[in-house]
């Protein structure tokens, strides 16, 4: 029995090392293509863009969101802003209604139907060739849109461009741990962009050619992750998605463990169920790296984290059992002889070195992600927070997402 566990353990470590090395090799191949523009970007033409802000009980953040759109360096007459109140029960509508005085802003109110219905209402009223959404808890950097549009400008094959989403104003321990994770995600997303294998077109300011929706249909519920479902649908239909690393969008991150748990449960549940819905895409070479790398990688990480967690729980249980055994046998006696430190007893099994290697590449991803978002090299304290938060809590939302999938229970949005 122990040997089966050990075989599974080494297979998972092999796959995890493979994934990390794959990312690193992709980085080495493409590192010169990662450009961070500091000067103003000008385009050969400025096509009209419609940006929809779906709102549901966002009275505290939406004003700033809309202001960030009004502040964009993109020509005002080429930017249409649609604010859709999706049946908020707070004063969100009053807040957004103030913006109806702007000539390029339109405000809508509808019955609550979920974020995808709000986006679809926006789509119905979109007359431009480009369409995007901006979550009402996020703020766009002034230069973000023009930088995103520069990708469409140079390549007519590109169908969607995702920005770099950065954690905004991290204060709590949980938020700081997420900050490191968001930085790492920027790096990973850029690599997936190079591989043509992006699996999420994030709600904060991904811009699409309107053609995508004309061809493939509007947003779907997508297990409460409509931004993942549309990316899967695009990949299935071989529509190219790029990542514009220097288009920054700041998003409010969950402040507490409970809120983070709910958000991630929704994301992972969305990943599992969208992957199940699109299982026909898995391991088919015609769907490229998305099918052979991104989706299997997601599955591997879920299985690995769950396995690691079970192993840790088992080891802790085993330790406690041994201590109880000692107590029952000889009572509370602490003999000092048992506590002498000796390097002999340091574990030097091969998996230790491989796990250290994996962690080094994860830290590298965070450091390079930080360079891409903050322009700074080096370690930060937040990177230390990441490991305990995500290795101790992630297994719970992962396993709950699997549990919900098996029992077909749908997680709430918040």
């Amino acid at each position: 029995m122990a040997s089966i566990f050990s075989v599974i353990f080494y297979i998972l470590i092999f796959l995890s090392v493979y994934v990390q090395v794959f990312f690193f090799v992709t980085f080495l191949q493409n590192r010169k293509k990662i450009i961070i523009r500091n000067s103003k970007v000008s385009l050969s033409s400025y096509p009209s863009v419609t940006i929809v802000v779906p709102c549901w009980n966002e009275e505290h953040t939406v004003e700033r969101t809309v202001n960030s759109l009004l502040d964009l360096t993109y020509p005002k007459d080429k930017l249409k802003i649609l604010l859709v109140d999706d049946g908020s029960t707070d004063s969100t509508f009053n807040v957004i209604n103030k913006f109806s005085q702007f000539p390029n802003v339109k405000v809508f109110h509808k019955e609550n139907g979920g974020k995808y219905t709000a986006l679809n209402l926006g789509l119905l009223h979109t007359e431009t060739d480009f369409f995007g959404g901006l979550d009402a808890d996020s703020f766009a950097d002034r230069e973000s849109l023009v930088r995103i549009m520069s990708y469409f400008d140079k390549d007519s094959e590109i169908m969607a461009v995702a920005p770099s989403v950065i954690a905004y104003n991290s204060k709590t321990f949980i938020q700081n741990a997420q900050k490191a994770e968001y930085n790492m995600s920027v790096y990973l997303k850029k690599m997936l962009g190079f591989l043509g294998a992006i699996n999420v077109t994030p709600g904060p300011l991904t811009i699409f050619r309107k053609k995508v929706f004309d061809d493939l249909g509007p947003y779907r519920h997508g297990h409460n992750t409509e931004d993942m479902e549309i990316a899967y649908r695009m990949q299935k239909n071989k529509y190219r998605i790029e990542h514009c690393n220097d288009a920054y969008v700041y998003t409010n991150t969950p402040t507490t463990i409970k809120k983070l748990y709910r958000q991630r449960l929704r994301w992972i549940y969305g990943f599992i169920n969208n992957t199940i819905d699109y299982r026909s895409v898995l391991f088919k070479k015609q769907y490229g790296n998305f099918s052979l790398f991104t989706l299997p990688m997601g599955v591997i990480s879920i299985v690995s984290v769950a396995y690691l967690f079970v192993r840790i729980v088992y080891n802790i249980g085993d330790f406690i059992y041994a201590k109880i055994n000692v107590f029952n046998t000889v009572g509370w006696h602490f003999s000092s002889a048992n506590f002498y430190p000796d390097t002999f007893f340091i574990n030097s099994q091969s998996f230790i070195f491989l796990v250290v290697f994996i962690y080094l590449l994860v830290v590298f991803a965070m450091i390079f992600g930080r360079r891409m978002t903050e322009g700074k090299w080096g370690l930060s304290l937040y990177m230390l927070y990441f490991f305990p938060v995500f290795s101790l809590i992630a297994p719970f939302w992962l396993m709950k997402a699997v549990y919900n999938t098996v029992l077909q229970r749908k997680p709430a949005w918040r």
Partner: protein
Amino acid sequence: MIDWKKYLIVFLITVSLFLSASYVSNYFGERKIDQLKSIQDKIAIDILSSETQFSLLSELSCKNISDSVFSGELAELGSKLEWSERNLGATEEVSYLKKYYSLLQIKDYLLMKKISARCGVKSSFILYFYTTAENCSLCEKEALVLTELRSKYQQLRVYSFDYSTDLSAVKAMLQIYKIKDTALPALVIDDEVLTGFHGIDELEALIKKSFKLQETKPEENTQKSN
């Protein structure tokens, strides 16, 4: 569209990382085995030296001799060997070292017996037989009791023998005390064989009676470790 070459190269890199990790792991494993070997050699020399000293000086230096063999080192070696068996795997090298360890224990035991006979000191030792061939939870419990007793009574020597050790000297001990693998753990205290699990209170009373041992006082401990 798919860069198969890259998938292959990454696979090869991953395989070579695995091989390197296992090479490094083996290197450290061997270093540990070397460390065990050097401890064993030192103990072997100590025992041989004590034996020689004992033969040379006869009864005159009883006091010096009884202090010259370091049972503490034997215990340390025992715990390191046990750890190696669990973590480095029951390799040939580890099982060879275990045999050697058993032999050193027997030699130490015989020497102590001789010393006690000639110098008129009551020897205080326990022979302990256990098994690793099958899951023996009582053996594990008994080992805990003995470790505790050993730390409580510094003069007490515990010699432990794995029933499944393939060594004629160990087999001879098993024959002498008529130890059977169905009745493990087994203890020999003052030539009396006890089978099955015996709790700390029972053994403590027994060794106090047999060997008239005193609990180690903290001051004595510090002196010894110095």
